[in-house]
């Protein structure tokens, strides 16, 4: 299986590449529209600011190719900023349009917790993944890339903004920070976004990447 990782100049891509290579995937690291259009599986990684990420995709002419592939049903995984860019828009440094592949928007994590006490932003923590509220709390990840995750298993989060999917059906996994649920994974058709970094989440994260790409166990 070939995994096409989109490089728009913002992040450490080595760990994502290594993680897929760990399971024997062939990797295509690219910033070219034609490679995106030819992809079997797409990964959109990223850290940093939303505006800069979208500007990078725009400059490289990648926005339409990514949308086209998602429309055709090619599996697409967005990680961290890559997940946030799957949504309609973000309010980070002014309102900026996203890829519009999952209905919803991206907002700043509140600086107060559910009890009104100050909480740290950015949110940097290993936090447990739990099925979103409308899903079965035991088997809610079945049939998705998260199916190897036992509810409560922890992944590494580092973010100052959080996605708010427009409807519960787009919400796959949540995590709890400061007494509130934060969207940890969102999906719409073949498009999946994860707020945490599976490539930095030890064996739990690696299993998510393996399952996403349907690679054999290492």
């Amino acid at each position, binding site marked *: 299986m070939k995994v096409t990782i989109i490089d728009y100049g913002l992040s*450490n891509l080595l760990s994502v590449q290594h*993680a897929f290579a760990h399971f024997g995937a062939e990797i295509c690291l690219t910033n070219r529209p034609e490679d995106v259009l030819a992809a079997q599986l797409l990964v959109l990684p990223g850290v940093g600011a939303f505006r800069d990420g979208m500007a990078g995709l725009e400059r490289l002419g990648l926005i339409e190719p990514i949308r086209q592939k998602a429309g055709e049903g090619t599996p697409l995984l967005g990680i961290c900023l890559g997940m946030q860019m799957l949504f309609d828009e973000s309010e980070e440094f002014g309102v900026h349009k996203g890829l519009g592949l999952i209905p919803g928007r991206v907002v700043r994590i509140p*600086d107060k917790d559910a009890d009104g006490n100050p909480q740290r*932003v950015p949110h*940097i923590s290993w936090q447990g993944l739990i099925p979103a509220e409308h899903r079965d709390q035991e088997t809610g990840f079945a049939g998705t890339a998260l199916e190897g995750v036992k509810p409560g298993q*922890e992944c590494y989060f580092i973010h*100052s903004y959080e996605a708010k999917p427009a409807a519960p059906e787009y919400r796959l996994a949540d995590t709890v920070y400061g007494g509130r*649920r934060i969207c940890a994974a969102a999906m719409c058709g073949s498009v999946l976004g994860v707020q945490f970094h599976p490539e930095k989440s030890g064996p739990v*994260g*690696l299993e998510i990447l393996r399952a996403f790409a349907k690679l054999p166990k290492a």
Partner: protein
Amino acid sequence: MEKGHKKIRLIARLDVKDENLVKGIQLEGLRKLGDPNAFARRYYEEGIDELLYIDIVASLYNRNNLSGIVRRTVDEVYIPVCVGGGLRSVEDVRAILSMGADKVAVNTAAVKRPELITEIAKAFGSQCMVLSIQAKRSHSMPSGWEAYYDNGRAHSGYDVVEWAKRGQELGAGEILLTSVDCEGLRDGMDLDLIRAVTGAVTVPVICGGGVGCGDDIVDAAEAGADAVACASVLHYGQETVQELKEEIRAGGVEVRA
């Protein structure tokens, strides 16, 4: 919704000189301990939450020598890696991120030119920019601590609490706070320092210097630490990561399984 207990991250700090893992006391008197990659790999397998590599002679030579070590680490270690020591520019940061680092810890260059904090945060995001502060007790500073650099050798003239607040305003997404007074002694952390800094900023604070057992980490978490960096207690084989984590849980603080 259930809020649960405070959760902390447990970080292994690996000070590197040339190709060796080293450890000193109060950042002096370095002893060679071996291949840093072997230690990193072991801590990963034992369940450490994050790795922190510091090239501790880098600022003397004006360059960071960790590229090769970081590159090898991320071949087999799938957790966050922060790298510090001798990083002076956006280009230096870009180079080490391209080797697989996720964040950088900057001290000396930020003291000398605080705008660098903003430049790094703008180029790679605040989450990437960790301001490293070496704190030493000082009667001449309003908070009671002065920020040092060059491994606790050089005075910055900055008050630690004021510098932490300014660093956050300039764009630091996290602060690495090391107590030079307690460093390497394994005799508990400077809890007053932890309280003073964590109470003054809203970004997460990684606290280091003085961890000798799990209870020290529990105390630090209760004082406000979001993460604790450990070195001697792990490097000398006194405790494994899992043993430390069990002690932390027994003390009523959450930590990753």
